[in-house]
C-alpha cells in the first residue's frame, strides 16, 4: 500500500468512528443507479455532469454523482410507508463527468451521513442541523484538519422572507424559482420594478372577469379555435396565467422599498448570531414577519457557535442559493477556497422521490480526496 493510500484508509476509519459513535450505521449503496430520479430532480442539464448509459435492455442507468439520493432510495426501501428516524453513514466513490482538460477528478471518495425522518418540529430541526454540522467538523478535526473556514446559510429563511413580502403570489413564485440563478434573479427584480407591458387581445379582457367567467371565456376561445384539449396542462392553469398577466399590467410595479429590502437581505454576512441580529433588524424596519424562521435560525446559530468553538463560522444569507435540492440549512467547510465538506437540509427530497409525506432530512459529506491533499499540505508546511 502506498503511503497516500494508507493515509486515506486511516482517515476514512477515523471519520467513520466519529459517525458510528453518534449512532450512524454504515450502509452499502449501489454505484450503478437508475438514471431517472437524478434526471427528474436536476433536469436535463445534469447529463453534462453525470455518466449516463443504457443497459442492453434499454434501461437508462448512471454512475451515482453523489450518495444522498441513493441513501434516500435506501431509506424508502427500508422503511416503506412507515417512515421513522434513520441514521445512515456511508463511504464510497461518486462520479462526475468533467470537461476535457479539467484537473478535477471524475471519481472521488466521499464519507457522509444522512439523518432522516427525525421529528418534524423546529427545535428538532435546528438540533439535527447542528448535530450534523458538529459531527462533520469533529470528523475533519479528528482526521487532522486545522485552519479551515466554515460557511453557512439558510434557504428556508429566504423562502420565509419572500413569503412575507406584500406582493402577488405569482411574483413570489417567480422570485423563489429564480433565486438559485443569481443573474436571472437580478433581472427579474429589475423587471418587476417596471410597469408590465399591456396585454393584448384576450388577456386584456380576462383581467376584468372573475375566475369562473374567465374560465368559461377561455374554454369558448379554445372551442372556436378548434382546440379540444390543452396538451400537458389544464384550462385552469392557462386561464390563471392569462389573468395574472392581465393583473400584472394593471397593477403597480414592485415598490423600490421592497427591492431594497431584498437586496439588503442578500448582502448580510457575518458571525452567525450577529448576522441574524441584522436580519431581524432589517425585517423589523420593513415590517416583514419572519419570526418563526428566524427563531429556528437563531437556535441553530447558537448551537453551531457552541460546537464550532474557535473555528471561524460565517453566516451568509446568500450562501447555498445555487445548490441543488436543499431547502433550509446549508453549510460547507473550505480550505483556501476549496470545499472539503458540505451538506444541508433537504426536507422535500424524499417526498419527491416517492415518500407518502414530507420527511425532514439533513446530511453532510466529506471529500476524502481533498482532505487527504489538504492534510498532506499541512504536514509539508510543518516540516
Amino acid at each position: 500500500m502506498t503511503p497516500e493510500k494508507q493515509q486515506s484508509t486511516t482517515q476514512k476509519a477515523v471519520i467513520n468512528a466519529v459517525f458510528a459513535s453518534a449512532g450512524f450505521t454504515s450502509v452499502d449503496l449501489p454505484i450503478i443507479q437508475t438514471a431517472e430520479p437524478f434526471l427528474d430532480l436536476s433536469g436535463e442539464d445534469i447529463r453534462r455532469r453525470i455518466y449516463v448509459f443504457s443497459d442492453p435492455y434499454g434501461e437508462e442507468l448512471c454512475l451515482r454523482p453523489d450518495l444522498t439520493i441513493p441513501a434516500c432510495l435506501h431509506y424508502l426501501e427500508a422503511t416503506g410507508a412507515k417512515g421513522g428516524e434513520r441514521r445512515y453513514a456511508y463511504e464510497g466513490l461518486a462520479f462526475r463527468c468533467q470537461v476535457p482538460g479539467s484537473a478535477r477528478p471524475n471519481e472521488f471518495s466521499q464519507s457522509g451521513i444522512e439523518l432522516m425522518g427525525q421529528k418534524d418540529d423546529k427545535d428538532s430541526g435546528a438540533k439535527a442541523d447542528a448535530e450534523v454540522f458538529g459531527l462533520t467538523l469533529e470528523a475533519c478535526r479528528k482526521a487532522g484538519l486545522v485552519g479551515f473556514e466554515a460557511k453557512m446559510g439558510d434557504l428556508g429563511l429566504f423562502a420565509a422572507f419572500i413569503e412575507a413580502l406584500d406582493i402577488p403570489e405569482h411574483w413570489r413564485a417567480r422570485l423563489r424559482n429564480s433565486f438559485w440563478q443569481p443573474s436571472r434573479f437580478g433581472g427579474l427584480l429589475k423587471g418587476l420594478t417596471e410597469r408590465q407591458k399591456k396585454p393584448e387581445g384576450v388577456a386584456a379582457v380576462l383581467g376584468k372577469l372573475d375566475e369562473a367567467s374567465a374560465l368559461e371565456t377561455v374554454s369558448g376561445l379554445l372551442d372556436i379555435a378548434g382546440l379540444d384539449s390543452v396538451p400537458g396542462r389544464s384550462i385552469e392553469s392557462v386561464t390563471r396565467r392569462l389573468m395574472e398577466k392581465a393583473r400584472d399590467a394593471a397593477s403597480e410595479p414592485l415598490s423600490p422599498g421592497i427591492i431594497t429590502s431584498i437586496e439588503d437581505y442578500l448582502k448580510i454576512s457575518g458571525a452567525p448570531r450577529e448576522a441574524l441580529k441584522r436580519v431581524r433588524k432589517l425585517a423589523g424596519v420593513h415590517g416583514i414577519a419572519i419570526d418563526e424562521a428566524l427563531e429556528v435560525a437563531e437556535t441553530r446559530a447558537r448551537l453551531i457557535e457552541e460546537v464550532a468553538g474557535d473555528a471561524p463560522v460565517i453566516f451568509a444569507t446568500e450562501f447555498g442559493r445555487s445548490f441543488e435540492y436543499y431547502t433550509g440549512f446549508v453549510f460547507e467547510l473550505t480550505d483556501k477556497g476549496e470545499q472539503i465538506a458540505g451538506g444541508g437540509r433537504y426536507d422535500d427530497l424524499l417526498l419527491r422521490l416517492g415518500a407518502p409525506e414530507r420527511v425532514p432530512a439533513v446530511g453532510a459529506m466529506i471529500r476524502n480526496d481533498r482532505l487527504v491533499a489538504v492534510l498532506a499540505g499541512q504536514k509539508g508546511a510543518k516540516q
Partner: protein
Amino acid sequence: MSDTLILALPSKGRLMEAAEEYFLEAGLKIQRHGGMRRYQGAIKGIDGVEVRFLSAGEIASGLINGDIHLGITGRDLLHEKTHEPDACVAPLSALNFGHADVIVAVPEAWLDVETMADLVEVAAEIRQESGRLLRVATKFINITRSFFAQHGLVDYRIVESLGATEGAPAAGTADAIVDITSSGATLTANHLKILQDGVVLNSEAFLCGSLGARWGEGSLDRAKDILGRLAARERARSMIEVRLETQAAGVDQVKDIIAASGGELASATGSKGGDQELVLHVQKAAFHDLAASLREAGCRTVTARELEFIYGANNPLFAALELEREQAAARGN
C-alpha cells in the same frame, strides 16, 4: 489510399437534387458508380476526387471529425454535432437552398405562453403541480440544451425523437418541441405555435470545408480546381456583362459612373468614328440604374447579357478555406 479529395453530398431528396444541380451548373457533373443505389461516385473529367453520398447528418459528422474534405450540409446539423462548429469546419458558401429554422414550439392551446420566459414559468408550474418535468421532444439534443440554458430553463426532460417530432404533443409524449421547420405548415396542422423568441437558429445548406481533414498536395489541388469553378459560376450568377459605346470625349465621365455603381471594367477597345466600346461586369441589382445613368451621359446603346463563368484574379472560396486552415493551425499551436 492516396491523396484523394473526398467530397460528400446529400444522398437523397431535395437536398441531393439541389446539390447536384449546384455542381452541374459549374460544369461539374456528379456521377454515381453503378446507379442510384450505390453510394460512391466521381466528378466527370476530374481525377483524384471521390464523391460519397451520405445523409446530411453524416456529412456534418464527417466534416467535424475530418473524414471528408468538402461537403454540403445544414448549419443546424453542424451545431447539433459539436458545440464549436467554427473550430473544426469552414463554412465556405451559403447555397441558398435547404432553408429551415430550428424553433421552439408549444401547443396553440397554451394561450398564455408567448415567450421563452413564459415557458420557464410554465415548466416550474408543471413541476410543482404534477411533480413531473416539462417534456421536450427533439432530435436536436445539444442545440436544445444550450438554447434552454441561455434562457434559464432547467426544469425539463428531453424526449428523443427520431421522426414526426411535431406529433409528439398531440400524442401525449411531449409538451413542447424543438424542431426544424421551413414553412410552419406542419406546425399549424399539429396545433403548435412558435414562441416569439423561439427561433433557435436559421439554417440553410452550406458548402463546407473540414479543418481537421488530412489535406495533402493532391487534395488541395483538386479543392482549388473545384472551388475555383464553383466560385466563378457563383460570381457569374450574381453579375451581368454590360457593353456600351461612348464617344472618346466622354469616356472619363462614363468610367466614373461605372465605378460609382460598383461595376468592374473588363475591356475597352477603340472603334470606328472615335467611339470606344467598353465591356464591364456589374451586379445584376445595380444594372438598370447604371443603364439609366449611362444613357443620360450620352451612351447610345447599352446591352447586357448573362454570363456562364467569371474567373477573377483570385479564387475566393479556396482563399477562405486556406485562411481558416491557417487560423486553425495557429490555434492548434
